[in-house]
């Protein structure tokens, strides 16, 4: 798999890992699909994360342990991804902190670099 896809998945999983202090307690009981599109790489990244944040924030409040990108259209900046997880339950999952929003503040995607660094600041 393309390294940039793996890294994008990691960004989404890193966000979910902030919502509980023990992500290993999240069972992969359901799969949810999100779709996101942008006008450039940064807005695609913004919307990709925002869709997952929305998935967590409304009924049925899904927290994902694993995120998989199933389609990635680099030309038109479109992503289709699956999140594997379950309903967030405070009696089962130790509460982490709340992500309020995704921000563009100093957002960086270094596709040219070897490590393919991605920086996103989320508001918590």
């Amino acid at each position, binding site marked *: 798999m393309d390294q940039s896809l793996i890294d994008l998945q990691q960004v989404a999983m890193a966000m979910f890992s902030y919502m*509980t202090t023990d992500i290993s307690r999240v069972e992969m009981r359901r799969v949810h699909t999100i779709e996101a599109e942008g006008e450039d790489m940064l807005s695609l990244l913004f919307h990709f994360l925002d869709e997952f944040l*929305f998935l967590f924030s409304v009924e049925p409040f899904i927290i994902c342990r694993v995120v998989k990108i199933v389609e990635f259209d680099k030309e038109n900046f479109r992503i289709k991804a699956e999140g594997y997880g379950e309903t967030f339950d405070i009696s089962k999952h*130790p509460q982490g902190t*709340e992500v309020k*929003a995704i921000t563009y*503040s*100093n957002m960086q995607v270094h596709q040219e670099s070897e490590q393919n660094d991605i920086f996103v600041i989320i*508001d*918590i």
Partner: protein
Amino acid sequence: MRSYNEEMKFLEKVTPYCWKINKGFVDNMKVDGYFYVNDRLEKLMFDELKQSCNSKGFGGFLPGMKQIANVAALPGIVEKSVGLPDVHSGYGFAIGNLAAFDMSNPKAVVSPGGVGFDINCGVRLLRTNLHERDVQPLKEQLAQCLFDHIPVGVGSKGIIPMTAQNLEEALEMGVDWSLREGYAWAEDKEHCEEYGRMLTADPSKVSSRAKKRGLPQLGTLGAGNHYAEIQVVDEIFDEYAAKKMGVEFPGQVCVMIHCGSRGLGHQVATDALVAMEKAMKRDKIEVNDRQLACAHINSVEGQEYLKGMASAANYAWVNRSSMTFLARQAFAKMFKSTPDDLDMHVIYDVSHNIAKVEEHFVDGKQKTLLVHRKGSTRAFPPHHPLIPVDYQLTGQPVLIGGTMGTCSYVLTGTEVGMSETFGTTCHGAGRALSRAKSRRKLDYTNVLAALEEKGISIRVASPKLVMEEAPESYKNVTDVVDTCHAAGISKKCVKLRPIAVIKG
């Protein structure tokens, strides 16, 4: 990219408590930037800048000074972009940043970044007629009782029954909704900014995504730096003003509530940011930072945002009213009394993330401005027509929440603040360490032990993250309010210290 020493050439100290950021520090600055600091706070500000120069902008946060300057580059800004003493790196605007825009200038903008994601996040202070010695023996039970009553932390759900129709009405009515439903007292309204209701609210401008996020969360405290605290009066600096607030003696017990508009506000801000990015291309507005997305005040996007923001502000007041109701119930239960007999009145309720249309004097002329306060608090002076009758002679009470385990303050607004900072002062301690750094440097068990040592009861939903909120992670709130006091932009009135903390 410039070196630290090159950056320093744009900065000059203009008074013992104020620095000026000259035009040229970032591109397109229309006015200069200013920030208020004392020696200790100054060091933190310059460290932030140094760090960013050293990393050559690779990852990390933008320093607060750069953000103040980026705001100074927004179209239609009036006079200056101001950083208050608690200023630190935020998103787009710095946190602790103030900027006013001229409503009569068709190019002037409104920016959701200048309000923040947590629209109308604010602080409310309730008084009681109890003495610390009445509460001490029951402190643990009282903390537990509050924790049981108030839903806290990520993923918690509100216990106040709400339907979609209720939510629409709450967004339109603010505290009036809480009053009608029996959650608030009529007197509460008097002691809120805007009387707890922004009349410009239009719930139809709030997306269904935002309403979906907001519905299950009404009456929840949230996480991060939000809290409910039982505090006692530690010191009274201004007896006359304190008396007007019903603060009579050291040791008097108060309750402070810090929360905002929850997911509803976060989504209103996100929606506006996305809509404005498109409008900016159309209207050819250029900004230095993508997070500073903005729209002309009178454009469709600008107006829709202001109406949605006002609805989210109303939600926040309903939220603080709901938590006030829960706190009053908890106290009544523990002391086998009624909230009325415990004199649990709202001293005041401030908004520290909001944009408001206000009248100010600019170069001797009265102007209508859209004042953005991001992590800063309105602090109107005595005799201002927009502050309640009870505070006409003292100036508006300003509530400054400290951090977990540190003291909090009540200040009052001043004439100097009115003319220097558009009637605005600080809002809290302001972060000194990033959350990641706090986690690396501090251990949560030590943080909890330190609180216990100080005799502070704590109930927290995510104990493993308390180091992020530890006093060491923040600037010293006393430095912050002392700087505001010394600079004259607000005046110290009462100091409070916590005896129990409930947080997410």
